[in-house]
Structures are given as structure tokens and as C-alpha cells.
């Protein structure tokens, strides 16, 4: 047996001494020396950074205390880690988790934690956890923490920034919706809290998996198989990136090709070969479990079988790409390197323009890019407003947001509101405008409404005439009707036409049934200047049944009891 420490007897009578010769009774708390403290070790900042991966989750716990949920009801840490797990479980597959999927799952977990609480609260908890992991408060940017590095400079101090994200949203082109993905930071924090080498981790995972299978621990084996698949995806992504860049511009990855890529390809090939062999071996182990009578074991075994086959497929696919990678390099080298050289004075857009621009400070980069935009654009002719159009435009309430504005900020779309006025009533009003022909006086239009031959119901004809009055008044002097303004504008335009213009010359509607101005309605502002049309004498049948309608300039119809 090895002796780790050997104790020597102290010589009798000699006071105990330290190694440096000072007697022990002189022992005072020594000042901590640089060499003795781990905070001065180069690996310390990395430990701090690894620890910080959990900080957002801890902060979420603190933020949750400010919510109006009952204390100690929802375990935010568990929910947060469950979210990351859910996302990871489907990452890289055809149906990656969407925000809606994960939200529903967390809502369910919250419901199980507090079944007595309202469903809205469960939903709120789900959204809260998801938003915290996405860093919605930071506009979905990375979390940032500033740390102190005492190891970088002798006797000094260096500040470091640790930026990372946990969950990010990606646009899934094939599904036309956003999916969630866990970042390597989240995966590593979840798996072990430390950064790791993909391949070593995979070896470890498969060893664990094999051991679990032999032990019959199928549930854990399933989890390990899922993890193995995720690691394979990461390996594939890494190789894909290099190949894509090689096709676009070999030079940007040239240094990687001369240094690390051949080695990575070789080891990837060996790795894939090893994984395929291991997966075949594991499949053999699972096959025996497939004969099990225990439904639980059988279900787990089936799932592992499916997972392993998928891993196998992924590896086979990756293998093809790895084998073809060198060919891609040679082809691209031939295509990109052996072409006619550019004139010597032409700058390289990537290395001599974009790269240094990105490295400039914000002020210099802003000045440069401002100039770049001007140079990239031809002459820009600013549109000048025509005076007569300008005045009309200023008078007219904007009909709605222009298409360009719509593109800038998305508008939450609700279901279209049910029309307030029935099509029959609108039809009466619109037909009156057509049959009377604009320009016309309001009295003529009211008369046309009441003598509409297509509408049988006198009540609908009367409603049509009221609608027309309202539309004409709205066109004359629209008011701010809050959310209904756009609706009123649309209705007015659908009845009277898009460029309708309304004015008054002081002529009154015939009393006693009517009160107010007999307004002139013209199809456009230019026609309004023509000779005013003649008024129409309104008969008793055209009057409202219960009380007189007052058509007042600048006001909607005011109704008063008779």
C-alpha cells in the first residue's frame, strides 16, 4: 500500500516550527498569497463563467417572488430545466418544439403543481418561465455578466464579459413558424455544467447507455439515447458549417483546412465508424428487450430501438458528407483559386472592407456605412407634394396605415368584427347614390333612399336613409371615434365613394320633419366647385317615423323626443 503522508515525530523540547523556520506560536493569519489562492489560477474565470450559466434561472426564481402567485407553489427551477429538456428532446428532428408546444407542456406541469389555482395563472407561469429563458426582457439578446479575472495580469485585474443565451428562436423554413432551440450553453449547463468535447461526451453517453441496457434500466437508457442523438446533430452541424463556407469562399476557412479540418475529418470518420458499430451493438442488446413481456420495458425498448435507428441513419448520412468533404475542398479550390486574378487595385470585399468595418468602433463604422449606403444608391429624387393635393391630404383623415408601415411593425390581427350595418341597409344607401348621381343634395339622396325600388321593406329603406345621412355628415366633418374611426371611414367610402367631398351653401332641409343643412355631396373636390345641384322636396313619407332628425353641420344626427 502506498503511504501518502509520512509523519515525523517532532524532536522533544523543540518548539514546533513552520517550514520556513518561524515558530508556530508566532503563527498569525498570513496574508493570502497570489500563488496560494485558486482565484489567481487561470482556470478560475472559466469556473465562474460556467457557474453563471445558471444565473438567469436563479434570477428567474427571484423575479417569480414578485409575482402574485402564492409563495412556494411553483418550482421555477424545475420548470426552467424541464423547458430546456423539452426543447433538447426534439432539437434537430423534423418537428422541433415550438413556443406553443413548450408553453402548453409547462402549463400542464404548473397545473399539476397547483391544481386549485386558476388556469390563467398556470398559463402565466408557463409564459414567464419561457420568456425568462429566451431573455425577453433583454429583447431576446444574450444574457451578459461581467466577471473579474485576477489571473490574466500579474497582480492586476481584468474585467471579462460572459455573454450567452439559453434558448433561441429559429425560423423553420419548412414549417413557416418559429421553433425553439437550446444553445450549447444551455445543453452543457443541463448535462454537466461544464463545457465538453462532443466526441468524448458521445463516447461517455454510449457507455452509460450500454451499461443501463445491461442493467435493465430502460428509462435512463432512453434518455441517454436521446442525448446521443443530440450530440450527433451537433457534430453534423459543425461539419456542415465548414463545407458551406468552403463552397462560398474557400479562403475564409482555408486556415481551418490547413490546420484542423483534415484532422477533424479523419477523427470524425473514425468516430462515425465507431458509433455505427456501437449503435449496432446496442441495437442487438435492445432486440432481446423487445421480446420482454413487461409492457413498460417493451415500450422503452421500442423507443430506444427507434432512436438508435435514427442515430444510425444520421451517422450514415453524415458519413457520406464526410467522405465527400475533401472532394468539395478540391473542387472549390480549383474553381476559386485558379480563376483570372482581379485588377490589383480592387479591394477585397470580405477581408478588406467587411471584416475591418465590423471591427471598427460604432462611430467610425456608422460614418463608413452611411457613406457606403449613399454610394450603393443612385440619385435619390425626393418627392415634392403638389400644393392642391397637399391641402386636401391634410384635410383628409388618413384612411389607414400604408403598406410600408404595416411591414415595419406587425399588427396583432383579431377576427374581423361582425358588420354593424346589414348589407341590405348599405345597399339602399349605395343604390340611392348611384341612382341620384353625384353631385347631389342630401335631400335628393334621402328621397332616392325612400323610393328605392329594389328594397321592399320600408323600415330598411328608412334605415338606409339614416345611414346615408350619417355617412354624409361623417364625410363633411369626421370625428374621432376611437377604434371605430376606421370602420366609419370605410363605411362612408363604401357608400359615397373614395374621393367624396361634402360642403354646405346654407340651404336648409325642409321643416318640420327635418332640421339642418341640405348638404351638397360631390364625387370629388373638383366637382364641388361646380354649380350646386337643386334640392329635392321631401315628402312626409321620407321623414323619420318617431321624431325629427336634425342634420347639424359638424355633428352627427341629434335625436330629440317629439
Amino acid at each position, binding site marked *: 500500500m502506498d503511504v501518502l503522508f509520512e509523519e515525523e515525530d517532532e524532536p522533544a523540547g523543540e518548539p514546533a516550527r513552520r517550514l520556513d523556520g518561524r515558530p508556530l506560536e508566532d503563527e498569525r493569519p498570513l496574508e493570502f498569497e497570489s500563488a496560494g489562492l485558486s482565484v489567481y489560477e487561470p482556470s*478560475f474565470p*472559466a469556473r*465562474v*463563467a*460556467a457557474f453563471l450559466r445558471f444565473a438567469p434561472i436563479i434570477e428567474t426564481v427571484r423575479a417569480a417572488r414578485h409575482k402574485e402567485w402564492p409563495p412556494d407553489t411553483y418550482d421555477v427551477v424545475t420548470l426552467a430545466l424541464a423547458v430546456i429538456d423539452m426543447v433538447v428532446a426534439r432539437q434537430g428532428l423534423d418537428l422541433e418544439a415550438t413556443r*406553443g408546444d413548450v408553453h402548453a407542456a409547462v402549463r400542464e406541469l404548473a397545473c399539476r403543481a397547483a391544481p386549485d389555482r386558476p388556469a390563467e395563472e398556470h398559463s402565466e407561469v408557463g409564459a414567464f418561465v419561457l420568456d425568462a429563458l429566451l431573455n425577453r426582457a433583454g*429583447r431576446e*439578446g*444574450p444574457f451578459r455578466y*461581467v466577471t473579474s479575472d485576477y489571473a490574466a495580469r500579474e497582480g492586476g485585474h481584468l*474585467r*471579462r*464579459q460572459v*455573454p450567452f443565451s439559453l434558448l433561441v*428562436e*429559429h*425560423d423553420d423554413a419548412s414549417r413557416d413558424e*418559429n421553433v425553439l432551440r437550446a444553445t450549447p450553453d444551455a445543453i452543457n449547463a443541463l448535462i454537466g455544467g461544464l463545457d465538453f468535447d462532443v466526441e468524448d461526451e458521445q463516447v461517455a453517453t454510449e457507455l452509460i447507455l450500454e451499461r443501463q441496457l445491461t442493467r435493465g434500466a430502460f428509462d435512463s437508457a432512453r434518455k441517454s439515447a436521446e442525448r446521443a442523438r443530440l450530440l450527433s446533430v451537433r457534430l453534423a452541424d459543425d461539419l456542415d458549417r465548414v463545407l*458551406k463556407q468552403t463552397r462560398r*469562399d474557400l*479562403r475564409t476557412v482555408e486556415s481551418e483546412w490547413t490546420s484542423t479540418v483534415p484532422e477533424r475529418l479523419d477523427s470524425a470518420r473514425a468516430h462515425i465508424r465507431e458509433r455505427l458499430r456501437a449503435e449496432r451493438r446496442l441495437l442487438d442488446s435492445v432486440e432481446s428487450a423487445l421480446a420482454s413481456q413487461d409492457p413498460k420495458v417493451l415500450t422503452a425498448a421500442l423507443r430506444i430501438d427507434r432512436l438508435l435507428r435514427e442515430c444510425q441513419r444520421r451517422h450514415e448520412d453524415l458519413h457520406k458528407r464526410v467522405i465527400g468533404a475533401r472532394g468539395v475542398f478540391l473542387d472549390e479550390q480549383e474553381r*476559386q483559386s485558379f480563376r*483570372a*486574378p*482581379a*485588377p490589383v487595385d*480592387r*479591394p*477585397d*470585399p*470580405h477581408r*478588406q*472592407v467587411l471584416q475591418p*468595418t*465590423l*471591427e*471598427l*468602433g*460604432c*462611430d467610425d*463604422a*456608422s460614418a*463608413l*456605412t*452611411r*457613406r*457606403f*449606403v*449613399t*454610394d*450603393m*444608391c*443612385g*440619385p435619390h*429624387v425626393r418627392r415634392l407634394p403638389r400644393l392642391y393635393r397637399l391641402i386636401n391630404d391634410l384635410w383628409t383623415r388618413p384612411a389607414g396605415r400604408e403598406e*410600408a408601415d404595416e*411591414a415595419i411593425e*406587425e399588427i*396583432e*390581427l383579431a377576427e374581423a368584427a361582425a358588420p354593424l350595418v346589414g348589407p341590405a341597409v348599405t345597399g339602399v344607401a349605395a343604390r340611392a347614390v348611384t341612382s341620384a348621381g353625384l353631385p347631389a343634395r342630401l335631400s335628393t339622396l334621402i328621397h332616392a333612399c325612400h323610393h328605392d325600388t329594389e328594397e321592399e321593406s320600408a323600415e330598411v329603406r328608412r334605415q338606409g336613409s339614416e345611414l346615408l345621412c350619417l355617412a354624409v355628415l361623417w364625410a363633411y366633418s369626421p370625428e374621432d371615434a376611437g377604434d371605430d374611426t376606421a370602420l366609419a371611414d370605410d363605411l362612408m367610402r363604401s357608400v359615397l365613394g373614395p374621393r367624396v367631398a361634402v360642403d354646405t351653401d346654407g340651404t336648409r332641409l325642409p321643416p318640420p320633419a327635418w332640421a339642418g343643412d341640405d348638404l351638397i355631396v360631390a364625387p370629388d373636390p373638383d366637382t364641388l366647385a361646380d354649380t350646386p345641384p337643386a334640392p329635392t322636396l321631401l315628402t312626409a313619407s321620407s321623414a323619420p317615423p318617431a321624431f325629427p332628425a336634425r342634420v347639424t353641420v359638424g355633428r352627427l344626427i341629434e335625436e330629440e323626443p317629439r
Partner: protein
Amino acid sequence: MSLTQSDYTDIGTLVGWAMRPTQRPGRTPEYQRVLSRYRSENELRAATDAFLHGLSVHVLSDGDYGLVLGVEPESPLAFRISDMAGITDDRQKLLAGLILTGLAAYAYPSAEEVEDDRVRRVSELDFDLWLRDLCRRLRSHDAAGEPIPEQGLDDAWRVYLDMPSVVQSDAGGKPGKLRRSCTRYWVRNVLGWLNGQGMARPDTASEGGWTLTERFRVHAKEIALERAYTFIAEIQRRAASANGTYDGSDAS
């Protein structure tokens, strides 16, 4: 032979067409006629150039794509980045500028590529990932985090990296709608602006795909890249001389 009144009318017509970047001479016989005159008649060409010179504008190309004009920043016809739709603050201006610079480098990765007039396709998604990856590599990042330099964190690439790639609206929102707080929105916005300038076209074959036109290449090649390079060289020269003043070393 001196120019007649009708020659000057043709010059005006030609410049008028050149001011509309989405128009092509192949589609309009009148444009074709005045452009042919510009190409073949020296006197008319000289008068047109002189007129444009007065506006601080010059001809970059007179090929089949029409008369492509470059503008000096002091010209009353110069486009300012604040004229771009949807831009409200300095950060957005810088972001849009970086994206445009990035598009030129993405489409033409080398000086030789700028000479090659084959069609360049850009996918919004691929471009965003590419530029993001480029910015990420600029971050001297290891397991311990990133050292904060003396001058603070002021690099332009951080502006891009600080913004997430995709942000969707609350409560799911409508798929495909992007918020202005994500880089994909700005990539689409800049490409949409280029479309209005006759420099890009939506690629109907692919979702989020665009084709950059010859006009884009002409502007990048003839004016924009060269000036950007000169600007950067000047900044680097200034930095080098400033370093020389203080510590006697040259900037690398």
C-alpha cells in the same frame, strides 16, 4: 456641330430615366433611343456628363441595364441612410449599413468575384447566419468569457450580435411576421430597399430568397467598395500614427 434644343431635351429625358433605377432600356424604346445616343454621340455624351457633374453625379455604367449613376455625398440627390423606410435611431442606421456592407461581401467574397457578372442569390436565412457567425468569431471568447478592453465594448459587430436572429410577436403571432427587434427583419428590410432601388429582386423560387441585380454589382464595384476601403485605410493610418506618437510602435 453644336447641340440643338432637342438634344438638350434628350439629355433631360435620359437623365430622367436614369433617375428611375427600376426601369430598363430594353422595356422602353424611348429610353433605349436616348441611351444609344449617349453611347454613340460624343458631344451629347460630354454635355450629359457635364450636366451631371454639376449635380455631383457621374455615370458608372451605360450598359444594357441602363445609365447607372453614382452620387457624391454632397449632391442634393444623395440618398441618406435615414431616408430608408423604418429607420428611427442610430443603432438601426448602423445595423442597416452593416447588412448592406455584408451583402456586398457575401455576394462577392473576393475581388475576383466582383469582376464576375454571374447572378448572385441571397437567402435571408443563410445571410443572417453567415454574418452572425462572422461577428461571433470576432468575439475573443473562451470558457472564461470575453475580456473587456480598455476602450469598452464599442465594436460595430456587437450591434449585430446583440440582436437576436428572429423574434416573433407575443402569443404566437402570425408566422412569417418579423419584429424590428431582430436581425432577420433588418436583412429583409435592406433587401426590400434594394428591390426598390433596382438592385435586388425577390426570388420567387424560394421563400426568403433574393437575386442581386447587375446594378448592385456595378455600384459595389465602381464606387462603394473602393471608397469604403479608402475610408478604412485612412482610419488605420490615423490609428497607426496615434500609436506612434504615444509608444513609438506601429499599428498592426
